[in-house]
């Protein structure tokens, strides 16, 4: 997620609430449906959900995934993938391992792997984002549609449904320059307090071990980490441990299980009508700028339009949320430059500090006015060049700011408050040294990078992705009403939503507890494998409702949407 733990927590809370409601329904009067906007599910979608959810092939897949061996395989796969560092825009190590396993272990042919080690995808018109390659990892479950005599396509691309979760993680910030890049997975009993510093984390002695091939070693520490709990209270009482590793909450358990689902679909010969792509996407975190999704949807940041070159007709995200509105964000990287970095002249770090200190005092619209759309900001990162010599000052410093809101008006309001503070910091530092802005030796300002995550407010909740997402939940008892919440998320889904492609989200993860998302102390504790299987059931059902499905009885559930995906500009290739 770009919002990870909190989103996961919200989803978990919502799931618990809804599960409680469903479980309680047999004993008490039906509770009122949750607040939100009702969707109108078409009858064919209701019928498709029932048919797919009970299909013998689907049930066979789920039965296998319900075994202890399958649960262990999923757990081990997660541990082995999550330890591969994957900073935003440097996801190639993790993508390479997924590519390797797809062909060598998960049953796919090289032709079914749709992404390349160099970051290229055939068919898209956007293989570079922010001038960098995009390390997505995608595999296709081939459908039957292309073989039909009346099959339609968009410039050679037959329709596809995308199921995706991101593979990039906030920490570590960069890949190590040398040595073993693997992340140490530390274990800490609940009886001890959450670590307060990176040093405390590093000092924990208990950690998981892996062999030379990257396989987890099933020793006593593994046994300790592999205990299953329902929630934090049970874990605390039952000898559970916090498993510290970046990506535990955001969002490798869900993404890893997407590939488990892909392999299981292949093994059990699940046959859709339209192709289904299952992707681990790049660039969701940090300065990633949703690069993975921009490649898949041909999204041009400057124009704010997507060509949808691969012809996706619907999108399913796996970061949880179940939302249809998406937070917008503005992101800036600003450089504070000292043309001649004298020790006694205006200072780049001081100018940057002045700007940050001003920004630090900002109150957002939602803090200032009751009822204003939720709006947030932070100076997420800052850095400086070292002085070139002992008797010289710092040549330049740079900061990165994130601003978000559910509505463009309040997003612009916070931007209009914060953006002038960059220059105000510069001017304050120049004035402190009696220099005019723009004069010799004055600090100057340069825009280094600008990120846009376009906001999206749905005009209607009635689209095929929402219908499939809700009805699969209703069919399987995960929810009890076709209601879309009023909340907003900041997710990969921003891109398809702004391209016109319907999208919905759920999760394939099942943590018992966790916290520390986006921080050095991100941790989780293993949750119930049965939850993962139930969620696979729902995701599979929803994806097949939209893609269409060749059922075990020989009938065909037709796709719930036409074969030409939406787009906001034409492809250029």
């Amino acid at each position, binding site marked *: *997620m*770009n*919002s*990870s*733990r*909190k*989103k996961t927590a919200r989803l978990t809370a919502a799931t618990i609430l809804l599960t409680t409601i469903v479980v309680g329904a047999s004993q008490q009067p039906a509770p009122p449906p949750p607040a939100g906007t009702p969707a109108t599910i078409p009858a064919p979608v209701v019928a498709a959900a029932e048919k797919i959810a009970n299909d013998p092939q689907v049930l066979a897949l789920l039965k296998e995934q319900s075994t202890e061996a399958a649960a262990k395989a999923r757990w081990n796969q997660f541990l082995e993938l999550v330890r591969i560092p994957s900073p935003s825009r440097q996801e190639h190590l993790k993508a390479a391992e997924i590519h390797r396993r797809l062909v060598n272990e998960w049953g796919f042919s090289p032709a079914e792997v749709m992404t390349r080690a160099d970051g290229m995808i055939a068919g898209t018109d956007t293989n570079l984002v922010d001038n960098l390659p995009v390390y997505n990892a995608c595999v296709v479950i081939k459908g039957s549609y292309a073989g039909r005599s009346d099959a339609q396509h968009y410039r050679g691309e037959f329709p596809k449904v995308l199921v995706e979760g991101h593979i990039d993680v*906030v*920490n*570590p910030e960069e890949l190590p320059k040398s040595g073993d890049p693997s992340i140490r997975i530390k274990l800490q009993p609940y009886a001890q*307090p*959450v*670590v*307060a510093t*990176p040093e405390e984390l590093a000092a924990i002695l208990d950690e998981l071990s892996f062999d030379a091939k990257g396989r987890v070693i099933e020793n006593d520490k593994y046994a300790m980490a592999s205990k299953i709990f329902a929630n934090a209270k049970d874990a605390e009482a039952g000898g559970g441990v916090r498993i510290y590793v970046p990506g535990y909450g*955001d969002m490798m358990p869900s993404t890893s299980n997407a590939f488990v689902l892909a392999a299981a679909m292949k093994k059990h010969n699940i046959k859709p009508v339209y192709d289904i792509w299952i992707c681990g996407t790049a660039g969701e975190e*940090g*300065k990633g700028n949703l690069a993975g999704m921009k490649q898949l949807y041909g999204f041009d940041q400057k124009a704010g339009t997507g060509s949808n070159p691969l012809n996706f007709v619907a999108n399913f995200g796996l970061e949880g949320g179940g939302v249809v509105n998406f*937070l917008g*964000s503005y992101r800036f990287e600003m450089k504070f430059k000292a043309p001649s970095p004298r*020790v*006694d002249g205006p*200072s780049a*770090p*001081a100018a*940057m*500090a*002045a*700007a*940050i*200190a001003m920004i*630090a*005092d900002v109150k957002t619209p939602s803090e200032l006015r009751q009822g204003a759309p939720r709006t*947030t*900001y*932070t*100076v*997420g*990162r*800052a*850095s*400086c060049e*070292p*002085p070139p010599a002992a008797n010289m*000052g*710092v040549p330049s410093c740079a900061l*990165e*700011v*994130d601003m*978000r809101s559910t509505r463009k008006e309040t997003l612009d309001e916070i931007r209009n408050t914060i953006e002038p503070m960059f220059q105000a910091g510069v001017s304050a530092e120049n004035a*402190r040294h009696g220099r005019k802005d723009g004069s010799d030796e004055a600090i100057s300002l340069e825009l280094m990078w600008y*990120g846009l995550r376009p906001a999206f407010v749905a005009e209607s909740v009635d689209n095929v992705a929402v219908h499939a997402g809700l009805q699969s939940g209703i069919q399987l008892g995960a929810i009890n009403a076709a209601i879309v919440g009023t909340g907003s998320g*900041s997710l990969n889904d921003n891109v398809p939503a702004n391209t016109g492609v319907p999208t919905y989200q759920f999760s394939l993860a099942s943590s018992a507890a966790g*916290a*520390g*998302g*986006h*921080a*050095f*102390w991100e941790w989780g504790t293993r949750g119930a494998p049965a939850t993962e299987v139930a969620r696979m059931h729902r995701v599979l059902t929803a994806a097949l409702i939209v893609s269409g499905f060749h059922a075990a009885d020989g009938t065909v559930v037709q796709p719930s949407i036409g074969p030409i995906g939406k787009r906001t500009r034409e492809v250029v290739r």
Partner: protein
Amino acid sequence: MKRLIFSVVVAAAIVAAGTPAFAQQSGQLRIEFQGPGGHSSGAYGRVSALHAAARAVILIQKALPAGSFQITNLTGGNSVNSIASDGLIELKLTAANAAAYKELVTAVTKAAAEGAAAENAFRNVKPGDLTSGAPATVRSIVTPF
């Protein structure tokens, strides 16, 4: 008034540094800030170690005489979409003698603590508060290097 007296002392010390009896002293300090960090939106409202560091820089400027310090680094945070859990100021100090240098270090340490305190106050957290089990405050530590 305290600041004025301190400045006079430092200035006098710097003047006195021209005499052999007072050897000029310089050194470098690292001021580290540690906070809980978190998602920029999901955990909004938590303190930022980087915001605290910037506040401390401004306080250092106010507390120390011009020419007695040079900020050589200001860094922190791990991604644009995360509240910074760490912040770091590196600076050089120059004083007329050991006693004056000690005064500078004391002033820097005080400014660092006040920068952290200002950030904690802005976000309404106090020592002992926890966020998701982790310490909710930003803390500072000053060390020579």
